[in-house]
């Protein structure tokens, strides 16, 4: 498609701003802009048509099955969008007097209370803007905790090799050295390996449970104990909470800090890459380290509380991605105690059903009960010259979004499938059928996979060229 710049014509307007109704002011010329930005000059109709047509090139949860492992692309209820766009939520300013935003503060307070109940934690901040941002915040809290105890040598963060890339990155940004611990052949943290790496430098451990293979770390209580005994803290990467919410709580399994991905578990949409929200919960002894402000209730008034003495400070401006919080809150109200539990049950049921069926076609390295997702591999197809990428690109031709590939890094040519609870058995059965079809094609006519996709708006794109000769903006010819 044409770029919006390519349909621009000098002098066209797409929007007429309010007329100047006071006397104009002339600013000193040393401050004034000399060359107007080359923004598009188009009509409103041009803009609507352009972006409507662009939108139609997208795959989305609203258009089809999106079994991206580790991403929990569940259905995003429309009620949530509707309430979030109420002007009483979307058109309020963060510095208004708190008495003029009691509804907003109450919502945040109540949401925090609910998330505490769901995670088993004692205090919450709703500020972080995404999962990684939550990790950053949580790890900073752990760091400040150790520093506050003058425990300055604790500069190592233990991270399993199956961890999401954000875990080591968040640790590093907080100044920690990352100690990788390997998985055993059941896909879980190797407890013996773990014991080898802990010590007086251990600040803590980051873990997601179930892990990124979709496997529940059965030794979790032991792991927690090992870390705690060593003086470290346990961090829970909540990206996979959808598997266990209502079944077991991070707080009850020994975790001290947890972040949640509201844009995964709590059904807020992902917005082609964000905004999300990554609230962080902590145990009581860490409460004072939370970023300021938190939301507090004083009698029946809700207030911003800036009083935390040991606060890590701020990780962003204002109070969080508020309208994302509104959506998660609406979701929790709709689901209720039973619904939250039901969601994880059906998510796990779907994943196990798919695992069972897919394992009849593709190799599933850890083919036991999984949680919300599982990992298969196309390694056996390597002799046909087929890589995981080829396999999943072919899915596009069948109208399905590919699962995650090449993550976690510990399984080769892997395909990580997370169906979520909002998909029906019919959809899963169709998926299995397609996988079977592609598998047969791989054996009979591998070229059709290598060259896939064939029916998408563009064919397979040249990533290498993009990186080698970067063209990062449009320029007039």
């Amino acid at each position, binding site marked *: 498609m044409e770029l919006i710049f390519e349909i621009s014509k000098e002098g066209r307007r797409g929007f007429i701003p309010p007329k100047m109704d006071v006397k104009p002011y002339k600013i000193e010329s040393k401050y004034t802009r000399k060359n107007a930005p080359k923004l598009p*000059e188009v009509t409103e109709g041009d803009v609507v048509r352009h972006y409507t047509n662009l939108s139609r090139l997208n795959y989305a949860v609203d258009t089809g099955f999106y079994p991206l492992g580790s991403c929990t692309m569940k259905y995003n209820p429309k009620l949530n969008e509707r309430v979030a766009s109420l002007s009483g939520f979307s058109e309020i300013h963060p510095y208004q007097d708190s008495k003029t935003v009691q509804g907003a503060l109450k919502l945040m307070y109540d949401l925090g209370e609910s998330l505490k109940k769901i995670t088993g934690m004692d205090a919450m901040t709703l500020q972080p803007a995404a999962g990684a941002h939550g990790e950053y915040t949580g790890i900073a809290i752990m760091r400040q905790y150790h520093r506050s105890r003058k425990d300055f040598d604790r500069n190592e963060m233990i991270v399993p090799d199956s961890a999401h890339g954000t875990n080591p990155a968040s640790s590093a940004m907080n100044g920690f050295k990352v100690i990788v611990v390997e998985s055993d052949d059941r896909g879980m943290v190797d407890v013996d390996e773990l014991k080898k790496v802990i010590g007086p430098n251990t600040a803590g451990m980051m873990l997601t449970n179930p892990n990124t293979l979709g496997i529940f770390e059965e030794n979790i209580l032991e792991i927690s104990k090992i870390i705690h005994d060593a003086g470290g803290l346990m961090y829970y990467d909540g990206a996979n909470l959808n598997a266990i919410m209502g079944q077991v709580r991070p707080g009850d399994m020994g975790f001290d800090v947890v972040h949640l991905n509201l844009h995964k578990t709590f059904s807020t949409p992902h917005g082609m890459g964000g905004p999300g929200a990554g609230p962080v919960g902590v145990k009581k002894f860490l409460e004072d380290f939370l970023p300021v402000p938190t939301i507090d209730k004083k009698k029946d008034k809700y207030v911003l509380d800036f009083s935390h003495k040991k606060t890590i400070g701020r990780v962003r401006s204002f109070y969080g991605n508020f309208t994302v919080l509104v959506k998660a809150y609406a979701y929790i109200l709709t689901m209720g105690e039973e619904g939250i539990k039901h969601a994880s049950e059906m998510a796990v049921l779907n994943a196990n059903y798919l695992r069972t069926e897919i394992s009849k076609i593709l190799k599933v390295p850890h083919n036991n009960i999984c949680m919300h997702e599982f990992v298969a591999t196309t390694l056996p197809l390597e002799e046909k010259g087929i890589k995981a990428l080829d396999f999943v690109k072919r899915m596009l031709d069948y109208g399905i979004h590919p699962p995650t590939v090449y993550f976690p890094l510990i399984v080769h040519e892997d395909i990580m499938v997370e169906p979520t609870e909002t998909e029906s*058995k019919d959809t899963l059965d169709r998926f299995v059928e397609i996988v079977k079809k592609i598998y047969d094609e791989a054996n009979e006519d591998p070229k059709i996979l290598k060259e896939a996709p064939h029916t998408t708006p563009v064919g397979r794109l040249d990533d290498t060229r993009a990186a080698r000769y*970067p063209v990062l903006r449009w320029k007039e010819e």
Partner: protein
Amino acid sequence: MNPYIPHTDDEVEEMLSKIGVKSLDDLFSPLPQEKRVKKMGLPESLDEFSVFSNLRKLAYKNADAQRYSYFMGGGIYNHVIPSAVHQIVSRGDFYTAYTPYQAEVSQGSLQTMFEFQTMICEITGMGISNASMYDGAEATAEAALMAARFSKKYKVLIADTLHPEYLQTVKTYASGPEVKVEIVEHDETGTLSLNDLRNKIDEETAAVIVQYPNFFGVVEDLKAIREVSKDILMIVAVNPISLGVLETPGAFGTDIVTGDGQPLGIPMNFGGPSFGIFAIRDDRRLVRTMPGRIIGETVDVKGKRGFVMTLQAREQHIRREKATSNICSNHALGTLYAATYLSLVGPQGLKEIGENNLAKSHYLLEKLEKTGHFKRKFSGEFFNEFVVETDLNIFKLKRKLLKNNIIGPIDLGMFGGTKNKLRKLLSKNDLLFCTTEANTAEDIERLLSVVEAM
């Protein structure tokens, strides 16, 4: 039954039997059974209308811009948003898509972000933009880290005229890698003191961070700052709307531009979500230390133009602990807001909006001064906000204004619990007024008449 979960009882049975387990509970057998949750204590599920009514009630308890006039800025601004923006961003085809890992079915997202990057370059005068950070504060903090990383020096200078919440955020981020933060003071114009800056630059200094216009609304003299800071990186946090009338930071040789994207078509949202702007000079070395997703142009197997995420070797999913940042999900939907907003307003609209903001704020200041109750605090040129000292009782003033459906100004003496920093800078009678094109002359008259009646 639940409207979001499709499983019928029969299906559940059938699936369990295919899996080869007896019950749902069997699927959770790997969990530590002694820790299984009995009751979380959440309320029972509600029907859609009840949830809606609940939330509508909460929403209605807030004073909002559909019912009140806003004279409040300080990082979030009540601008007029063209109706077409909402029409586009509310398409599920956009907002329910994931990060565009599968480029072939994400050209809508990718092309939008590529266009966005171009527009950000155009308005800031920079060479390369990423596809968004979380917000202005986080973007600025990551810019500080990037500067340190890039120059391998571990001190950053920060103008005390930077938004206090941005400052706090930079400080938090600086504490991990132990980057030293030093404050540069301002002078009576309300801009950074060049002398103080000159004095504080040493060979440990990686960068200086200023805001443009700054927290007091005053326009920093980037030319002069650049001259003083030749040997270090210059990081400028912008209000993008001001660049309809103000010279670009790029024109003064800025190295990194950050800022908050909220003014570009995003509702105030109680402060979030918006998105963070992050743009740099067109420099191959610099881009390799840049955080965030970047979209690039390429071709498909048939030579057709297409767009992909590129330069990913910087990112956490490849580089893990060596990544330039931990950012994964960004604020991509914000780029769609900004791209549609900027396409709609165009260069002429952006200019007119800038001029309108400028004129309104100066008009308001003039009128306020005429009442005799307000004194301009800083002599520097300003854009759409300004600080005044008042002899009025601020609580009473604010109460009266609220009664007249006016929100604002910001009471700097009481500012967001940031006791330490700001209290030193400002007296408790300082107010930060803001005007935008959404304030009609009539609104201003209403505000003035409240003041006059005091």
